[in-house]
C-alpha cells in the first residue's frame, strides 16, 4: 500500500511557521458564539436578545495531551467544540490551529488540509451515522472526499484496517448502522474520525450516551488510539470522574466562560475557583467515612440569555464581594500552568 502522503494534494506550507514546542496546537482567543433570539411577526423578524452560549472562551491544547472540558449541561461545551471545528461561525474571537486562523479566507485545498488534521466524535452515536449508508461507505467517505483518485481496492483495504483498529470485524463493513449497539456505533464514529490520520480529535461527550460497562471499553479504546496515533484530544464531559480519569489538563466551564484551567492533579488538589470547589464537592465519595462538606449551590444556573454582569458565578458564590458583580475577572495564570478567572481565588 502506498503511503498516505502520496495522495496529499498540497505541500502544506500552511503549517510551516508552527513550532510544536513553543505553541499550542489549538488555541481559542476570546471565542464568542451568540445565538440571536428573534421576535417573529408576520412581516419582519427582529433580533431582541442573544443566547450567549459561548462568551469569551480562552483555552489551548498542547500537542499530545488530553484536555478535559467539563461543565454543567447547557454551559456551552458543545457549541465551543462546534465553533472550533467550523460548524458554527463565531460571533467574535478566533481559533488558531497550528498558528493558523481557522476563519481566515481559505482555498478549498487549504480547508481540506486542515480538516484532515482536526476531527470530531459526536455525542449521540445514534444520530451521528447516516442510517442509509453501509459502514463501509461511512468510513470510506473521508477517502472519497480527500483522496478521490485513490483506487477503490485501496480505500476498502484501509477501511478494513481502521475497522480492526477500533475493534470491529471485517464483515461489519457490509452492515448498516441500525444493526449495531451504541458502543459499536461509537466505534464506527471514532473510525470515521480516525480515517484521515488527524492530529486533534474533539470528543463531544463520547461516552455519556453509553452504558457504564461500555463506557470503560470506549475510554480504553480512545486511550490506546491516542498512544498509537499520537493524538491530541479535547474531551468534553459533564462527569467529573470520567474527566479525572482521562485528562492531562482540565478546563472548567460555566455559562460560556472558562472558570479554571489546570493540570488534572493540581486542579483536584489545589482547587482555586469557588465554582470548581462546589463542583468537586458534588462528586460522590467512594468511602463515606471520609467526611467532606458538600457545598450545595443555591439557585439554578442563570440562563445564558440574561447572563449576570461581572463574574457570571456571583449570584451563587459564597465569596462574592462588591467587585464581583461589577467587573468580569480575567483568566489569569495564578500559578505556573494554573489559570483561574476569579477575583478571590483560593491559593
Amino acid at each position, binding site marked *: 500500500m502506498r503511503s498516505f502522503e502520496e495522495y496529499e494534494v498540497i505541500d502544506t506550507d500552511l503549517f510551516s511557521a508552527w513550532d510544536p514546542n513553543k505553541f499550542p496546537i489549538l488555541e481559542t482567543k476570546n471565542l464568542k458564539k451568540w445565538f440571536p433570539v428573534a421576535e417573529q411577526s408576520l412581516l419582519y423578524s427582529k433580533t431582541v436578545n442573544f443566547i450567549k452560549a459561548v462568551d469569551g472562551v480562552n483555552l489551548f491544547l498542547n500537542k499530545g495531551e488530553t484536555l478535559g472540558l467539563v461543565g454543567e449541561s447547557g454551559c456551552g461545551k458543545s457549541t465551543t467544540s462546534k465553533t472550533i471545528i467550523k460548524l458554527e461561525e463565531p460571533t467574535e474571537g478566533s481559533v488558531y490551529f497550528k498558528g493558523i486562523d481557522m476563519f481566515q479566507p481559505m482555498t478549498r485545498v487549504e480547508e481540506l488540509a486542515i480538516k484532515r488534521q482536526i476531527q470530531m466524535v459526536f455525542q449521540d452515536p445514534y444520530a451521528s451515522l447516516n442510517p442509509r449508508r453501509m459502514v463501509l461507505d461511512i468510513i470510506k467517505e473521508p477517502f472519497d472526499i480527500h483522496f478521490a483518485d485513490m483506487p477503490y481496492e485501496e480505500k476498502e483495504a484501509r477501511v478494513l484496517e481502521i475497522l480492526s483498529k477500533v475493534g470491529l470485524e471485517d*464483515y461489519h463493513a457490509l452492515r448498516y448502522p441500525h444493526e449495531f449497539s451504541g458502543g459499536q456505533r461509537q466505534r464506527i464514529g471514532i473510525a470515521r474520525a480516525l480515517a484521515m490520520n488527524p492530529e486533534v480529535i474533539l470528543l463531544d461527550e463520547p461516552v455519556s450516551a453509553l452504558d457504564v460497562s461500555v463506557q470503560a471499553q470506549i475510554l480504553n479504546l480512545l486511550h490506546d488510539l491516542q498512544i498509537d496515533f499520537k493524538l491530541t484530544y479535547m474531551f468534553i464531559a459533564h462527569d467529573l470522574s470520567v474527566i479525572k480519569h482521562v485528562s492531562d489538563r482540565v478546563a472548567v466551564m460555566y455559562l460560556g466562560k472558562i472558570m479554571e484551567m489546570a493540570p488534572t492533579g493540581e486542579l483536584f488538589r489545589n482547587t482555586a475557583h469557588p465554582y470548581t470547589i462546589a463542583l468537586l464537592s458534588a462528586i460522590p465519595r467512594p468511602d463515606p467515612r471520609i467526611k467532606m462538606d458538600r457545598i450545595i449551590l443555591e439557585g439554578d444556573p442563570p440562563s445564558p440569555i440574561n447572563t449576570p454582569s461581572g463574574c457570571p458565578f456571583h449570584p451563587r458564590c459564597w465569596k462574592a464581594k462588591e467587585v464581583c458583580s461589577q467587573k468580569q475577572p480575567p483568566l489569569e495564570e495564578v500559578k505556573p500552568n494554573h489559570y483561574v478567572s476569579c477575583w478571590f481565588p483560593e491559593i
Partner: protein
Amino acid sequence: MLRVAREKRKTVFENNVKAYMEEHRLPPSMSWVAKLAIAWRHYSVDIAVQSLAIFTFLLIFLSITWDTSFARILIWSLIVAGVWGVVRFSIRLYKQTAMQKELIIAKDGTLRERSPSNWSLIWRRYKKNKVSLLSGSVVAIVTLIAIIYPILLPFNPVQQVPLFDAWNGGGSIARPNLKYPAGTDILGRDEFSRVLAGSEVSLTVGVFSTVLSVFIGVSLGAIAGYYRGWSEEIIMRITDMFLSLPFLVIAILAVAFIRRGRIAFLKQIPQSMVIILVLGIFGWGGLCRLVTANTKQIYRLDYVNAARVLGASNRRIILLHILPNILAPIIVIATLSVAGGILSEAGLTFLGLGSPTTISWGQMVNEAQTVFRSNPELAFIPGFAIFFVVLAFNLLGDALRDAMDPRLKE
C-alpha cells in the same frame, strides 16, 4: 453507482465467499460453471421428477384430445417438459446465488447473515400487506398495458367497425357483445380497444407530470431547506403563491390559452404534453414544503455535521446524506401525485379541453354524454377505468406510506 456496487461485492464479499468455498472444498472460483454444478447437485432430482410428471401428464392429455400423430404429441410434451425444467433450474440457480450474496463470513469462519438494508425491510413490510400487493400488481399491470397495448388491441381504436350484422353487432353505439366486449362508441369505434389505448395518455400524463413536479419540488425544497436564510424565504413565498392558486382554473386557462390561442408554435405542442407541463409546473408546491421541512430536520442531525467536518461539499451532503433519508416521503407523495395527475387529465379532457384526435378516458366520457340516456355504458366504462387506476395508485401510495413509516419498524 452500479460499478461501485459491483466492485464492493467483488472485493470484500467475494473474498469471504471464496474462503467459504475453500473450506467446503468447493471449486475456488465463483464461476457460473461452479454455481451450475452446485445447483445441479442440489436440485437435479427434484427438477427431473417434476419434468417427468409434466411430460407424462401432457402425453396422456394430448393423446386423448389432440387428433394427430403420436410422434408430434411426444415432441411437444418433451419440449414443454424441457422448458419447464430449464425455467425451474434457472430460478433455483438464481435463488442460490442470491442467497450466497446474503451471507458474510466472519473472521472465525462462521457464516453470518448479511443485515437487510432499509429498503429490504421496507419490502418485507410491504409484502405482508394484501392490499399493497394487490394495488401494486394493478399498477404494474396497467403500466404494462400502457406500454404494450398496441399488440393487445383487438381492433383499430380509431377506425369504424363494419356495419351492424345480426350475429356480431357492430355499427355505432352497439351494446357490449361477444365481438365488441364494451360495445362501440358514437362514431362506431370499438370501445374496448379505445379503453386499452387510453391507458397510454393517462399513464404518460400522470407519470411525467409527476416527474416534472418532483424535480422542481425536490430541487427547490432541498435548496430552501439546506441554505435557509433568504433563499428559503423567497422559495417559500413562491410556494405559498403556487399553493394558493386555484389549480383547476389556472389549468383550464393555460390549456385553453395554448390550444386555442393565437401563438402558432404553442399550438403544435401535443395535447398530452400541454397537460403534462401545466400539471408539472403548477403541482410541486406541497412536495416542496415537505422537502424543505424534512431537509431542515435532517440538516441538524449529527451525521450531516460529521460530513461537514470531513469536508464534504454541499452537493455531496444534499445528494448522499439528506435526499436518501427523505426519499420515503417523496416516493409516497409522488405515487399519490400520479393518481392526481391521471384524475386531472381526465377532468380537463372531460371539460372539453382535450383534442379529439387523442384517445383519452376523460375525452371518451365527454363524447359519451350525448348518448348517456340510451347508452350509459359508454360513459361508465372509461369512467370506471379512471376510477380503478386512480384508486390503485392511491392505495399504493398509502401502502408505501405504511411500509416506510419508521414507527412500524421491526
